[in-house]
């Protein structure tokens, strides 16, 4: 299992649209993937899970992956979260 700290920078954070796109990316990996925000941890392949974290702009989160492709999962998803999220709603 590996993990990585990421700061979300786009303006709307993980709103429903961004979250929906993110879970699609995450679902491409075999590894189990989670996002931790403070004390809450949610499955990164679940839209409700992602929404329930209410990740806003500027939030620090921990990306966690566990499984055979965990390495590429972390690096791909980190890149997506730091530079792939769209601006605004």
């Amino acid at each position: 299992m590996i993990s990585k700290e990421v700061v979300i920078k786009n303006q709307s954070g993980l709103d429903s649209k961004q979250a929906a796109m993110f879970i699609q990316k995450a679902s491409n990996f075999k590894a189990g993937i989670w996002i931790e925000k403070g004390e809450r941890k949610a499955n990164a392949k679940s839209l409700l899970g992602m929404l329930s974290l209410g990740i806003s702009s500027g939030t620090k989160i921990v990306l966690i992956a566990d499984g055979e492709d965990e390495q590429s999962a972390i690096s791909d998803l980190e890149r997506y979260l730091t530079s792939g999220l769209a601006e605004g709603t």
Partner: protein
Amino acid sequence: MAKTTLSGTPVSNGTGVGKIYAFEQTSIEINRGKIKESLINEEILRLDVAIDKTLLEILDLSNDLRQRLEAESSLIFEAYKTILEDKYFINEIKDLIIIKKIFAENAVDMCINSYVSAIEISDNAYVKQSITDIKEIGSRIIRNIIGGKTVKQNLDDIDNKSIIGVKCLTPWLAAAFGKKNVSGVIAEEGAAYFSHAAIILRDLGIPLMNKVSYDLVMNSNGHVAILDCNNGNLIIEPDKKEISVYKDLYKSRIFDLGGFFRKKNTYAETVDKKRIVVMANISNVDECDLAVSNSADGIGLVRTEILFINSAEMPDEKQQRAIYSKIVKKMKAEPVFIRTLDAGEDKIFSVFTSKMSINHKGLRGIRFSFTQMDVLTAQIGAIVHSALFGQVGITFPMVNDVNDILKVKGIINDIVNRMDDKSRSKLNIKIGAVIENRKGIENIDSILEEVDFISIGTNDLLQEMQGASRKDLVESDKLYLHPDFLIAVKYCCMKSHEKGKPVSVCGEMASDISAAVLLIGMGVDSLSMHPAKITAHKELIRKISYQQSKEILDQVLKMLDEHEVSDIVNEWLRSLI
């Protein structure tokens, strides 16, 4: 009940007249009791079935509305689907059933509530907007588990003359009301300007007003009302005069055959908010693209006789079906009006000269087609089938009396009866008569009883009335501006509107701006012309007032000839530009 006016925040423009229908959102009794170990599997099955059912309901709504919504607005359905297909979410519910030994609906409720409260404490305002949607999904699933009144059943009493009052509007309800093409929607909450519900109804062109107390609406359940979202008023029990003023402004919506005419930003409305539908006349499939690029509100006339003019022989039903369907598909959400073969003496048919018998008796329009029943039946069959792909109106040229219509309706019914149930339920075809001779005008009352709309064929009518051959008419003559002719056209409009049926004009008269403004003054709902002229017409419509065009019409009807009429109209038009 005395006349009352309620105000609110309008979030989707337009006006609607109808009966208030207070839409009750019954709270659901959730059984919080425990279940026996042996019933756990049964509860899980109930959950799975309900989730599938909910998913199907969404697919149903999104399929029906897809063509009418902007791509962005359809995303809400994707989000609903994603949640219903979220196996982590569903497994959580199942775990609750197994571990806590509770009923499926209770597990769904608990699970949804835990997500909602987590989102409520978060500081992301964008995510908070999704709370309504999540709650909605929860309650849909629960309703489907319990099998009580689903939205579908609740919606049975609603029709396109209803103004729906609701306590909390959700995108789901907005879509369901939209599918029913209601006259308007009033909500106490859930309909902020940027809410999905508001976006959906704006896309569909259905007026929506937010922040109106549901209790007050409930008190006026069943009463006639005007929803005026241009001014933010709900007028309950208005007087007759008020209704007629609004109905007048509202007529163009009656024409829209189910709401498909209303394309955002591209439609043309007079300064006093009367919508005029501006469509394209086409003679071949490629002209569809021209119509689309000129923002046509639809195809007002497909001249089928010209469509096949270069064919060596008349295409059979299958070939025609392919061509009409192509046009209908190209126009996507916009309606297409297809006129059956219009055989007149001035139209040459290479196709027919060889195959069809010669037009001995000088029969015209649909009467001539009746002498070629196999050709007519094949064409009607092809047109009816093209209506499976969109909004189609079928029009019949030079209808003389109601028997012409009854005859073609018989043919249409035979075709429809041979379709399977599924196709039949999808079919949305409207039937119209082209009124273009004296006989047609004389019999207009009985014809109107049997059609959904009329189209006035100004070219042929003019030819008959003036005794002039159409070939001799040059544009500068503008005989259609003659007061006698205007009175005849106005008479047709009045008769049609008395029966609540819309009127369109597709001839040259509609494409001449000075005549078009007079047609607007008569209350003509739709003008159809060459695609290239559409933009200029729409620009003009946005500058004029319906009220004023009526006044100008009254004025010109007192004139002596077309020159005087032309002078008055042109002077008015110059003052506008």
